[in-house]
């Protein structure tokens, strides 16, 4: 049986989802029964779970971000063509 301190320490350093099945079981067993840290750590697990799911969705959400400023892009294009020209010369 894990102690409150061990449960808090594990959740501080790792995501619940990444734990081994045995550790996950022991952790959840403690959290379900514990009157001291149960409510708090249940919300920590919920939050970790939500963030894991968010990371899976993140790639598609990036498309909704505003594009880069057009002037900045032009300046960057110029800089890159100079730099890539230099590095091509340097490589050859």
């Amino acid at each position: 049986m894990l102690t409150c301190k061990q449960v808090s320490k594990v959740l501080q350093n790792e995501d619940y989802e990444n734990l081994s099945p045995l550790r996950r079981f022991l952790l959840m067993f403690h959290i379900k029964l514990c009157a001291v840290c149960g409510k708090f750590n249940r919300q920590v697990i919920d939050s970790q779970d939500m963030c894991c799911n968010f990371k899976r969705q993140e790639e598609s959400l990036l498309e909704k971000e505003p594009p880069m400023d057009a002037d900045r892009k032009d300046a960057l294009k110029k800089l890159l063509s100079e730099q890539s020209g230099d590095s091509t010369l340097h490589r050859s």
Partner: protein
Amino acid sequence: MFSSTHMTFIDGHAASVIVPRKSTVTSQPKVPITPPEKWVELYSDYLYGFAMSRLRDPEASADCVQDTFLAGIKALNRFDGSRDIKFWLRGIMRNKIVDQIRKTVKENKVDIDSEDETLLESFWFRFSGIATTNPEPWQFNPRKQYDNTEFWVVFRECIDSVKNPARQAFVLRVLEDMTTEEVCKIMDITPNYLWVLLHRARQQLKELLEEKWTGPDVM
């Protein structure tokens, strides 16, 4: 592929058999290198969006894109073609984002405010590391919203609204999957204080979501 010979015993006699061994080197398709002149056109918006999602600062994000492209050109010789150059550049950008956060943290040193001090110094937390506060239950069940794309858009907005330095800690530890030690080193804080910052970020995120999310299942 038959690549190794093993000795085995059949009816007491040694016999040589060839055992197929799983190939340890998988041949990966080589991805062609996009010339740097085309990077701005193809990847700048994607990388800028990624930097914005981490830094929430248009100027710093644009600087990050520029630094990433320049570092990419220098390191192009080392690109092995095992993945799309877009993701290779994103890998470089992760380091630039960490550098940017480190710079911001240095400029605005993370101070422990009185509220955090109370929590850190509380008897239970100091001597046991156990959080005993009883948070309010969620006003809706977030797990039921996972299939709803709109929920994640709102979630993104809420992350953006979390205040620094809690947001910076959240980005590094949760979104960038860095270890506690790495984040503490970058932000120059103790592991206990990192815990407080993450707790604060989670609390703010929950409050913001409850305020902004108006989808189904809201009580």
